[in-house]
């Protein structure tokens, strides 16, 4: 196994609301190794986004640590590209597609030519070669999310962090984007951490699936999916391994509510 890129150790996060302390995340530990695709799946309201914001350095954990590429995260890390859920609120409407991808590169010591080359390369990788001068609101939702992915890739991250990135596009576009992200993972050799509530998506994409659950939320289980590459929307989903992993994840998630309650407690 290669060395770990992302290490989360006993992370807890609580908020104070109405003078009472609410624990959202309790003792979460996990690791993502170089080039690995990690999916974090959990029911809605489980604090997935809170966890993601801790990893992104946008908020700090109450206790425990997040380390990226060997150094502890205290603010937004240099080697992390983030793709947010709502693409319409993550791209600047006053910048062109190329301008949006270029924007973060100004905080890196690249020359002008180098920046343009990176932008062009990232846009090519997501299949938006002919959209450089368009504005985000002139292209479809799926294409906008590709721009957000290109922006993250051009930033040259060690890890790509994605918050339900395909939640607001239609099913066909979603499949395309899933395959796209698998492709760029290989091409750019990045570690991907993807947060989702969609079990099928988590199993299809992930090398490992981390199932969150409970209140406060903890790691229920880490499942190694073990599906072969390249993955294919039809063939992969027809494999018994896929069905098994999917069932396992679903059982764990269901365990958090309804009939499964008794079994867990």
């Amino acid at each position, binding site marked *: 196994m290669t060395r770990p890129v992302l290490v989360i150790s006993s992370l807890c996060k609580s908020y104070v609301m109405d003078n009472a302390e609410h624990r959202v995340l309790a003792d979460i530990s996990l690791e993502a190794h170089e080039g690995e695709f990690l999916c974090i799946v959990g029911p809605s309201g489980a604090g997935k986004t809170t966890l993601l914001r801790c990893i992104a350095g946008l908020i700090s954990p109450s206790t425990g640590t997040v380390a990226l590429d060997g150094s502890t995260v205290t603010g*937004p890390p240099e080697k992390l590209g983030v793709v947010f859920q709502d693409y319409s*609120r993550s791209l600047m409407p006053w910048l062109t597609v190329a301008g949006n991808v270029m924007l973060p590169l100004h*905080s890196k010591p690249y020359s002008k030519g180098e920046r343009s080359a990176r932008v062009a390369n990232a846009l090519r990788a997501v299949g938006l070669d002919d959209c450089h001068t368009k*504005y985000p609101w002139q292209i479809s939702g799926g294409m906008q999310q590709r721009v957000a992915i290109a922006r993250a890739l051009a930033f040259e991250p060690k890890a790509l962090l994605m918050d339900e990135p395909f939640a607001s596009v239609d099913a066909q576009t979603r499949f395309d984007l899933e395959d796209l992200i698998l492709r760029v993972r290989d091409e750019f050799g990045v570690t991907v951490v993807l947060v989702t509530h969609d079990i099928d998506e988590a199993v299809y994409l992930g090398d490992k699936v981390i199932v969150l659950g409970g209140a406060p939320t903890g790691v229920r289980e880490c499942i190694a999916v073990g599906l072969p590459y390249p993955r294919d929307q039809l063939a992969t989903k027809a494999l018994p391994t896929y069905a098994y992993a999917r069932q396992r994840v679903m059982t764990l998630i269901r365990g958090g509510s309804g009939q499964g309650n008794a079994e867990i407690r």
Partner: protein
Amino acid sequence: MKRSLANIITELWFPLVVLIVLWVLSEKSTSFYFPPLRIVLETFRRLWLFSQVRSDVLPSLGSLGLGYCLAAGVGIVLGIILGLLPRVHSVISPIMEFLRAIPGVMLLPLMLLLVGISATLKISVIAYAASWPILLNTIDGVRGLDPGLLDVARSYRLPWMRRLIWVILPAAAPQILSGMRTGLSLGVTVILFSELVGSINGIGRRMLEYQRSFAMPETWSCILLMGILGYGLNGGFLALERRVLKWDYLRRRQSIRA
């Protein structure tokens, strides 16, 4: 080119018709207060094309320009600071509400005593009056910034200056510009008013003199001049707005079509 000519014709044909009708109707006028349009236009040409431009129009426009630029500078800078620091804003907002309630022209008598009849008087009162809409709109615009965009700016480690120029300012720009437009029309009102009260030159001062000597065509020509200047200023401002907010215009046009 052809299209812009067509645009001008569409915009101007009706005013031209009105002008001709007024010309014809007023031609026989013997009223002292409403002289024939022909005489007003003739007076207009004599006074404002261009013999008194240097002595009166330029001082008025100069004071307006200077006061307005001051207002825009103070309003935008302070607005960004207060927009980004909601706590400071909430502390000083009662004072701001109080000051804002005082019409700018009310400060004229006081300022007249403090700085006397001078360009400083005009400039300072314009700056005061015009800065309010700019300041308040800027605060609103900055506070209305989508937190999602700030998350992006933070997670991609945009340096402070770039964050301001590429994220905060463009997001607030539509509101800042609409505040600036209100500020401009306020500025025009205030410049004339302050020239009526305390000035040795300027369009307002000249008009006061004509009115006091019952020179009606001259008085009317001042009103006509202000109308033309105001129209031009607003047109110029719209053109600037369209340039700065090109993305906003295009986007809105698209969403109307969709």
